[in-house]
């Protein structure tokens, strides 16, 4: 019985370390690729609603919506990443992200899951070979044999020309 006790102890220690090193991500899909964003940056998840168009902005900036009294821009992530544009379906989802007191919604194909990832197992992003520009990618994680590309939310929320204007 001493053996069992030791294994149990070991397991609970492992569990502890796991929890210490765990980060949680919300994973979503764009096409056949999976991406993840830090769960702490996710304000809410909504279904797609019509937006009010903003003139003379890049095509991936779809427009703005009223989110409980604030004006929040909605960005199509597929278009942002240069992926093929797809029509919106009833399953299309908007993930509302926030970073540095700014809020923005991103349109994704669908939301998968909240996954725990051990910080230590996150790999550095490759310099090439991914569809998405690596400037947005913080790292790669392996979840259930799938590769999830972890996105840098701050960079994502920084739209072209935004910070100069906001100075």
């Amino acid at each position, binding site marked *: 019985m001493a053996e069992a006790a030791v294994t149990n102890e070991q397991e609970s220690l492992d569990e502890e370390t796991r929890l210490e090193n765990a980060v949680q991500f919300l994973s979503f899909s764009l096409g056949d690729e999976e991406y993840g964003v830090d769960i702490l940056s996710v304000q809410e998840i909504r279904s797609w609603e019509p937006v009010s168009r*903003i*003139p*003379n902005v890049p095509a991936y900036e779809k427009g703005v919506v*009223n989110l409980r009294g604030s*004006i929040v821009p909605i960005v199509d992530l597929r278009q942002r990443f240069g992926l093929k544009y797809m029509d919106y379906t009833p399953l299309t989802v908007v993930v509302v992200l926030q970073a540095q007191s700014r809020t923005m919604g991103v349109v994704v194909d669908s939301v998968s899951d909240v996954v725990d990832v051990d910080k230590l197992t996150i790999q550095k992003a490759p310099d090439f070979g991914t569809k998405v520009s690596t400037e947005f990618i913080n790292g790669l994680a392996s979840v259930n044999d799938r590769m999830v590309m972890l996105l840098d939310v701050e960079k994502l929320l920084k739209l072209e020309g*935004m910070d100069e204007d906001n100075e």
Partner: protein
Amino acid sequence: MSIDMAQFHQVFFEESFEGLDAMESGLLNLDMGDVDAEEINTIFRAAHSIKGGSGTFGFTAVSDFTHVMETLLDEMRDGRRQVTQSAVDVLLGSVDCLREMLTAIQDESEVDEQSVAEHKKALETELANGGSQSAVQAEAVPEQDDNTTEVQSLPAQGWSIAFSPHQQMMQSGNDPVRMFRELKELGDLKVSLDLQGLPDFQNIEPEDCYLSWKLQVQGDVALPDIEDVFSWVEDECDFAIQPLMQEEASDGSSENPPSAPEKQSAVSEPAQSSTKKPAPAKKPEAKAEKKPAAKKGSSSIRVDTSKIDTLINMVGELVITQSMLSLVGEHFDISKLDQLKNGLSQLERHTRELQESVMNIRMLPISFVFSRFPRLVHDTGSKLGKKIELVMIGEQTEVDKTVVEMLSDPLVHLVRNSLDHGIEMPEERLAAGKPEHGTVILEAYHRGGNIVIEVRDDGKGLNKDILRTKAIEKGLIEEDAILTDQQTYELIFMPGFSTAEKLTDISGRGVGMDVVRRNIQALGGRIEIDSELGKGTIISIHLPLTLAILDGQSVAVGDERYIVPLGSIIESINITEDQVNRVAGKGETFRLREEYLPIVRMHEIFNIQSAQAKRLSEGLLVVVEGQGEKCGLFVDDLLGQQQVVIKSLEANYRKIEGISGATILGDGSVALILDIPGLVRLSNH
């Protein structure tokens, strides 16, 4: 219990700055020939308050400095000292110094010790001259009454006290029992009552005290502690203290009190820290130009409690209306339709009233902006050697808090300009047959949903020819440009324009005027200028009463909805193709009375595919104006007019050319608010 005093500091700073403002305006208002006693009193009280507060909250340097000011003012209000210009000037300088001290403390930056020392010296010098009491009294001088009876301070045994309250003593709320309790805390107390003074029953006044006592306090008790207990009532009783002799202490028998009750001396005050010596003159860092006391923590606002009460009442009404509507909605059937309609119209009324009330809370009287001008005009006038009188009208006119904050600097610039370039030197004025004193009038009033602020002077006015020449020289206008008088005067708003013969440090290099105009326009307002050579100049600023709410005209362009600020709309017209001029390289223009205005095709510059009207005759032209630019917006249709709450687009997103903000419509959708100058710029590309 220890209390953190820091929580009261912010309020103390705020009220002290207000107090300093009150002192300043009071001092400026003083008429040497006829001093208003109440005015001096107010100034004194302000200084007194700051001294008291700073002492309480531990700002000793401030307290010491203010004490000297207070002493000077006290003598003035008592009539012991004449109010002289030099005293007033010294006090004005001290007010500035105090402001800087408090700002530095609030900012947690360094206090300019040298400046403080200098001003204090000036105050002390002033105190030493004139007035019947010359020396500055150190704040607390321990008072020694020469009639102190010879008693040892610390006898080991204790004290014997004979205490006879006067008949009326209790009517000051002093209760002998309370005093005995205090004595008990000092040592062992023995009390024996003397009923001698008690009259016959029918003559007893229940509120009077006829009793007297002999008390013994045993223990190692300091005399001052005993005296403290009776300090409040010394004029209302007879009492005598004697050291307790050994035998008395042991057997506790009362000793006959001395036959003549002796009054005790005044309790000595704890000596407070004497006035600090000024810190050794450190190498003064480049003494930068005195910064105007920036009001810190301007994110708070003082509100009249009556406004809050009104608000509370309205919310109350709203709640009632809401529950009424709930009730109607509960088991609704068509027979209740009228009730529903009634309820809804009440709701609309209450909501509107509530909205007005809330907006009203942010309204401050413009005196907050005007208040700095008496001092400014006084100082600048002296500096320039000109005699200038400032008249302020309509100071109670209310304006949104943000407007107050953003109007201050532009207005200062305009007034300085008047003082510097407008009002002539006294000799010049006399030569021109004008009174020696120049007059600058600052006036504020409401007109049609706007607030108008005028700066009027009776100076030399603007010279159109000089303006025109200068503008041509600087390449701002063409040689043959035809300008109305108005447009000529407005040349001074163009960047890089200045006709000052010499650049003074008062009004700067003329880079100010275009900034002033831009600031005014950023507030959604406009600035106009009118002048008459030799007579004077009038500058008027028009601002919307409130910044967060806009009266808007909703327009449709295809599926999109935009809001055009109502104040910018001149008119809406139908035009036909033949009214349009097309000039190569300049786009389309149409004629409106005397002018040719550009046409801005909304669906083109905003790339709106769903636009209905492609031909001008199919849509509407909304003629608008912004920043002096006029144009016609070509839209599909006019929708309703409504008040909209302006929401920032830049908070979460970015600045869009042609758009000044967004609003949320009744149906929850977002409509963009158009920015006219931006649109004109866009269409010019």
